Structures are given as structure tokens and as C-alpha cells.
């Protein structure tokens, strides 16, 4: 009989068959020679506590997904534009305000220069977009600044790029979230004091969504981007019509005289540079398409390059258009009694205080939240790449139950939430930390591309090289400007953080490298079996089933074994010896009298003297300390057992030439 089944009788005499049990089937599937694939049941927890935790986690995060469930959807240009550009386009919601916040220091008249500055930034955007088009073409597998610089420049520079990117992603989450909340509080000023709570609550929801394996590919991400673009373009068109055709709107000119002598700073080149640096935040997210080229439908590079062009054009139009409306409607930053974002004031001016205004604010807030979400895909993925390269702890490369890089998501959410809390949910306070890393990244990837073209020398390389060289020079200049003018406002933190992160990643890499060298074995032929002698030491507390099982285990390992009994009661020791010699005569028992009643130290000291007594001309033996362990039936009675064994284990962990073996005894 097999599997407890008797042969089954067929319809005809003599036709019999046996149905076989397949015990592996619920847990594994044979998928190749000597290869099993675990099924969901094999990964399911078996203990009551594990099952409870799995149910709680399942409720919040969802049921575990198999690796094969990962979506590999390719994006059309239209969908990709919405998905990859939400970060870049959303920056138009706060970039204008950042310019005006600086210019207002030079008086209301100085704010009129906002338009010129936004045009200058748009020119910079064109240069950056042209440079990134080259990356789309050269790296169809995705050209993040880390991978481009790693391939073309070297490890340290690539780590600088990675550090800047990590900071950039964290800042994207923090800035986009706070700005989204500011759009909400601009529409509903009563919520202004709760902005930090709202920001962290929404961030928690985004985090949970990402831990559940939320993907960016769905229409849910495409629709809000187009709604924002559509409503913002409409707003620019209506506002532009009113200003240019109907002659509405005010300029700062008529008020210039009133402003003289009423300014904090004169309108100097430095102020203009500061405004330019503040507005350069509009360029954040421009690199997203170059990083995500493989997600496009074929021909990937061509589609990505075309989408990048459209994105840059849209961003440029939105940014200049919104700045034009702000300048011509005489809109400036308002912080009291409750903050009113510049874009919300423009919307109120154009759409009035009715339904359309609220709808636009909702579109803007949703787009900004989506922009925050883009980092939840990019940041954990970059950490996973860094972990795979040995620059970050390996846990970051592990996917969670829902195929998401859970550790990276949690780290990102934690740091971003801390920033929102520390900067009291104020976008303006966070901005100085933002653009610095972005421009460092731009510069590094463009420089990497210069090396790329010099090495490849493919057709048209001179033209491509000159585009990237121009891009690198321009972004490097802007990086210096942004860092200098924002240094005191917080950019110093980024300048300090980048080397720290590079140092940390280099340190981790050295550690992993060292460990790998230590563990490496030669790969040229069969490896020999054990050559060292081994001995077994079994600390015992008497003779019982657990001890006998441990002794039998020790017997199976070597003939050189002995039991050690530590006691301060000599009568008990004599009694044990008498019984031991009677029942386990082949195993020597060593009684260690401990007048100071210590248990652990005498065992360790005994092991030390055994080591010292070993002939110095022979290789040290492997000492296997076998610990008999009683397995408690319930979680609540575990405290009653094995406490001495646990202490002994702690004392022996890391001891040279020593292996600790637990031999659990279970009651059946």
C-alpha cells in the first residue's frame, strides 16, 4: 500500500490500480531536474502568531503576489507622457511662486522680472531636454544618472550621482506633498493649521498603496495629469485673452514709485540670480523619461525622445504661461492670515471663486500627490540597484509580498514625513534643499554622455557630444549658482549629505567586498571534505530525554564527545555520575564543581582549557557544543525553559573554532 490507499478495483476482474498521494503538490511543483518551485502554501506562516500577523498584513497590504505576476506593460507615448511627466509638470505649480518669493524682496516692481526669469529657465529646460534626448537614444535600457556615470565615469562619481538622486527623490516626495496640501489649504484656509497632519496622512496612504504594489501604469495616473494640463492650459488661454485682448490685469509699473524705499533688497544681479536659482526647481523630474525608456513601446528610444520633447514643451508653456499671468495680474506670495499659493490665486483670478476654481485646485493637488508617488517607484528601485551592486544593505534588493521593494518604500516615507514635520509643511522652506541635487545629477549624467560619445564614436557623435557638452556646462553652471545662492538657506545640508552618503555607500561596499573575499572558495575542481578533528561537548543538567537525544546526536558526529555537568551540589553530582556510568558508559561525564554557583563561565573556562591542552603542532579541532533543548508547548511557558542554554549560547557566539548546535526535544 502507498499513501494509506488500497488498490482500487477496476470494472473488469484483474484491472486494478493504485492512486498515489502526492504530498509535495500543495507546497511545491517540480519544474526541472532537481528543481522545485515553492507554491503559496510553502511560503505561508505555520505558527499561530505568524498566521495572525499575515492576516493583519494581508488586510492592509494585500495577499502575496508571485514574482511571475509582475506587470510588464509597455506604455504608449500618450500614457507615458502622463506617467513620467507628472513630477516635472507638477513643478510648474510652485516654481513661479519661488521666483516671485525672491523678487518680492526687491519690491513689487521687481516682480515684473519674473517673466524674463521664467523664459531664461525655459531656455535652460530646452538645453536639458535636448541633452536627455541623447541619453534616451544611447541607453534604450534606461539611462539614470547613476548607471550612465557608472558605465562612463567611475564608481565614486556614480555614487555622487546616486546620493544626489536619493536626496532628489526624498525631496520630490516632501515638496510635492507639502505643495499639494498647500493647494488644498489655499482652497480651504480653515485647514491651514492642520497641513502637517494632512500631509503625513496622505503620505501614509501613498506609502500603503505602494506597499500594496500600486503601479504607475494604470489610467488612474494618466487621467489626473491630463486634467491638470488641460485645465492649466485653459486657464492660461482665458487669462491671456483677458490680459492681451481685453486689456485686463495690472502690471507692477504703476506702483513702482510707491515701492521705492519700501524694499528689503535692491534689485541686483544677485537677487535676479537667486530668483533664477529658486525657479530652476521647475526642471526637477525632467530626467524621469530617460530613466524609464524600457517602459515605452518599441521603438523605445525614439518614442521616449519624442515624449521628452512634448513634455519639455508642455512644461515650458505652463511655466511661462503661469508666470505671465501671475505677473500681469499682480499676484504675489501670500502667507497671512493663511497661505495662498500663487497658482491658486491665478486660478481664483481666472476662474472666479466658484466650482471651476475648486476643481482646478483638486486637479493640482492630485497631480502633486502623483508626483510624490513617482518617487515611490524610483527611490526603492535605485536603492535595490545600489544594494545589488553592494553599495546598500542587501535587504533593499528584496521584494516584499506584493513585489514592491518594501524596505525602500518605508525608508522613503519615513524620511519624507520627518522633513514635512520638521519644515512644518512649508514648501518654500523645503525648496532650497531640492534643486541642488537635481542639477548635480544633470551635470554628472551629461558628463557621462560626453565620455560615452568619445568612446563610441558612432555616426553623428560629434553633434551629439556637443549637445551633451553644452548641457553639462550649462547645468554645471546652474548647479554652482543654485548651490551658492541657496547655501545658507539649506543647500549646505545637501552638500554635506552627499559626501556622507557616498562615504556610507563606499563603506558598505568595502564590507561586502571583504566578506566576499573571506568566504570565497576556489572554483577549479571538487572541494575536499572536512580535515579537522572535531569534538563534542554537551552541557547537561542530569539524565533525561532531551539530554539522551543530544548525546545520541553527538555520538553521530564524532567519537570524541563528553558531557559537562556544572554544580555546587556534590551529592547530586555523585548521584548523577553513578547513574551516568550505568546508563551512558561510553560517554565521559565531566563534573565541574562551582562553589560560586556560576554556570556559564565554568563551561566557557572548561572549553578554554580544552583548547589550551590541544597539541600545538596539530590544527585546532572544531568544538561542537551540543545544547539539549526542551521545546515548550505554549508561547507562555517558553520563559520557564532553556534560559541557561540561551545564556550559554550568547556566551559562545563568535567563539573561535566553536559551533553551537541546538537539539530540540519535542513531546509527542
Amino acid at each position, binding site marked *: *500500500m*502507498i*499513501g494509506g490507499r488500497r*488498490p*482500487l478495483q*477496476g*470494472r*473488469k476482474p*484483474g*484491472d*486494478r*490500480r*493504485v*492512486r*498515489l*498521494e*502526492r504530498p*509535495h*503538490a500543495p507546497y511545491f*511543483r*517540480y*519544474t*526541472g*531536474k*532537481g528543481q522545485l518551485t515553492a507554491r503559496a502554501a510553502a511560503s505561508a506562516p505555520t505558527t499561530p502568531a505568524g498566521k495572525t500577523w499575515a492576516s493583519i498584513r494581508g488586510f492592509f497590504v494585500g495577499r502575496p503576489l508571485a514574482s511571475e505576476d509582475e506587470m510588464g506593460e509597455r506604455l504608449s507615448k500618450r500614457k507615458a507622457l502622463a506617467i513620467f511627466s507628472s513630477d516635472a509638470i507638477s513643478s510648474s505649480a510652485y516654481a513661479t511662486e519661488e521666483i516671485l518669493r525672491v523678487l518680492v524682496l526687491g519690491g513689487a516692481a521687481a516682480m515684473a522680472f519674473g517673466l524674463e526669469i521664467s523664459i531664461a529657465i525655459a531656455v535652460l529646460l530646452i538645453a536639458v531636454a535636448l541633452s536627455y534626448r541623447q541619453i534616451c537614444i544611447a541607453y534604450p535600457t534606461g539611462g539614470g544618472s547613476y548607471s550612465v556615470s557608472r558605465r562612463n565615469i567611475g564608481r565614486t562619481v556614480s555614487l555622487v550621482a546616486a546620493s544626489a538622486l536619493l536626496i532628489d527623490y526624498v525631496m520630490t516626495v516632501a515638496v510635492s506633498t507639502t505643495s499639494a496640501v498647500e493647494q488644498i489649504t489655499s482652497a480651504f484656509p480653515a485647514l491651514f493649521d492642520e497641513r502637517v497632519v494632512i500631509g503625513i496622512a496622505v503620505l501614509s496612504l501613498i506609502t500603503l498603496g505602494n506597499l500594496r504594489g500600486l503601479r504607475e501604469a494604470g489610467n488612474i495616473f494618466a487621467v489626473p495629469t491630463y486634467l491638470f494640463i488641460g485645465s492649466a492650459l485653459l486657464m492660461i488661454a482665458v487669462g491671456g485673452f483677458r490680459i492681451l485682448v481685453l486689456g485686463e490685469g495690472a502690471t507692477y509699473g504703476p506702483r513702482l514709485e510707491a515701492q521705492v524705499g519700501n524694499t528689503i533688497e535692491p534689485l541686483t544681479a544677485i537677487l535676479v540670480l537667486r530668483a533664477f536659482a529658486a525657479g530652476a526647481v521647475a526642471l526637477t523630474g525632467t530626467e524621469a523619461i530617460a530613466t524609464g525608456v524600457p517602459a515605452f513601446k518599441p521603438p523605445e528610444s525614439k518614442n521616449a525622445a519624442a515624449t521628452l520633447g512634448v513634455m519639455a514643451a508642455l512644461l515650458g508653456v505652463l511655466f511661462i504661461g503661469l508666470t505671465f499671468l501671475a505677473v500681469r495680474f499682480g499676484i504675489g506670495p501670500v502667507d497671512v492670515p493663511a497661505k495662498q499659493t500663487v497658482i491658486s490665486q491665478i486660478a481664483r483670478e481666472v476662474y472666479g471663486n466658484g466650482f471651476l476654481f475648486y476643481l482646478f485646485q483638486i486637479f493640482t493637488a492630485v497631480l502633486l500627490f502623483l508626483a510624490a508617488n513617482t518617487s515611490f517607484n524610483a527611490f526603492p528601485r535605485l536603492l535595490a540597484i545600489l544594494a545589488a551592486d553592494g553599495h546598500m544593505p542587501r535587504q533593499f534588493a528584496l521584494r516584499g509580498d506584493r513585489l514592491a521593494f518594501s524596505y525602500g518604500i518605508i525608508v522613503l516615507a519615513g524620511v519624507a514625513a520627518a522633513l514635512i514635520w520638521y519644515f512644518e509643511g512649508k514648501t518654500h522652506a523645503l525648496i532650497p534643499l531640492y534643486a541642488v541635487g537635481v542639477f548635480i545629477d544633470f551635470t554628472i549624467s551629461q558628463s557621462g554622455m560626453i565620455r560615452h560619445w568619445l568612446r563610441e564614436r558612432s555616426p553623428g557623435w560629434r553633434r551629439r557630444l556637443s549637445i551633451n557638452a553644452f548641457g553639462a556646462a550649462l547645468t554645471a553652471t546652474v548647479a554652482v549658482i543654485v548651490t551658492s545662492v541657496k547655501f545658507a538657506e539649506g543647500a549646505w545640508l545637501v552638500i554635506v549629505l552627499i559626501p556622507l552618503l557616498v562615504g556610507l555607500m563606499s563603506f558598505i561596499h568595502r564590507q561586502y567586498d571583504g566578506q566576499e573575499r573571506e568566504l570565497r572558495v576556489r572554483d577549479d575542481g571538487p572541494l575536499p571534505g572536512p580535515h579537522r578533528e572535531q569534538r563534542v561537548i554537551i552541557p547537561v543538567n542530569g539524565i533525561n530525554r532531551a539530554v539522551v537525544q543530544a548525546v545520541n546526536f553527538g555520538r553521530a558526529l564524532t567519537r570524541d564527545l563528553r558531557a559537562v555537568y556544572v554544580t555546587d551540589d556534590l551529592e547530586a553530582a555523585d548521584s548523577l555520575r553513578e547513574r551516568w556510568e550505568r546508563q551512558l558508559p561510553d560517554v565521559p561525564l565531566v563534573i565541574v564543581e562551582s562553589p560560586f554557583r556560576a554556570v556559564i563561565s565554568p563551561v566557557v573556562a572548561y572549553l578554554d582549557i580544552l583548547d589550551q591542552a590541544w597539541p600545538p603542532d596539530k590544527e585546532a579541532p572544531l568544538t561542537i557544543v551540543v545544547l539539549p533543548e526542551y521545546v515548550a508547548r505554549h508561547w507562555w511557558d517558553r520563559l520557564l525553559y532553556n534560559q541557561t542554554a540561551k545564556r550559554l549560547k550568547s556566551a559562545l557566539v563568535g567563539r573561535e573554532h566553536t559551533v553551537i548546535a541546538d537539539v530540540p526535544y519535542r513531546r509527542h
Partner: protein
Amino acid sequence: MPDAEAPSFRRAVVALNGGPSDERIVRLVAQNARLTKAEIIAVHVVEIDWTLPLDSDVAGRSEDVQRVLDAAEAVAEASKVKLEPVLLQARDVGAAIVDEAVERGADLLVVGLPYRKRFGGEFAIGRTIPYILQNAPSAVWVLRDPISEETR
């Protein structure tokens, strides 16, 4: 592609022989079963010769045998259809398949037929399929493998 005109069934027993046609057969049946939410039972029979007891541990330990059913289950899963795998040991494969189909109340039995020739060039149908065709009370689908260059 499933044929919309294909006769519907409630419960199909698919006999697997461990050959390359298994995947094709399971996919075909699974595609048809999905339309009607029918059950599929995949049966693989290991023939035990008379030198061994019928219940000797032959198939249970063999990875190759288990893989036949596991692969079928994977194909059915990919088509989002549930498949019950059954592993049998018997003296006669045909009788075991028919008996299992009868016991399970199957209204369709599907078998694969490899294209083989006897010495001399005559097409060899073997013993199992004629037995099934003669004895199975349900409908029987026989799917013959395509003729390859070697067997032509």
C-alpha cells in the same frame, strides 16, 4: 484557439503520457473548459510490470513522473482553470485511465497519440488508445502529434 462549435463537457479526464503533446492537450482542454467552467482531471499512469507488486513505491519517488502532472497543472493555471492531478500505478494503462474516468463520472476523455511507425513503416497506434476507444463510455478525443521530419 478554442472552437466555439466544440462539444461542451462538464468533467474531462486528460490522460498524460509525459510526452511533448501533454502541454498542447492540456492547453486545448483548458481553453474549452474555461468557457463552460468544466472540471479537468489530469491522469498519469505508471505501468508496473508483473515482477513488482502493484503498490510498490515506483512512481511516488520519481521526480520525472511528478513533473508530468506538475507541468500540466502549471499550464492549466496559466489558462486560469483548475486541474486535479491524479497519479496512478497499474498493470494496464488503458484500463486504469478508463476506470478512473468512469469512477470520476467524466463525460470526456482526452488522450494524446504520438505519431510512431513500426518497423516496416506502418503507423503504430499502440494498445492503449484502441482499448480506450473500445471501452470508455464517454466521448473520447484523440489528439495525434503532428508528423515530424524524423517520423515522416
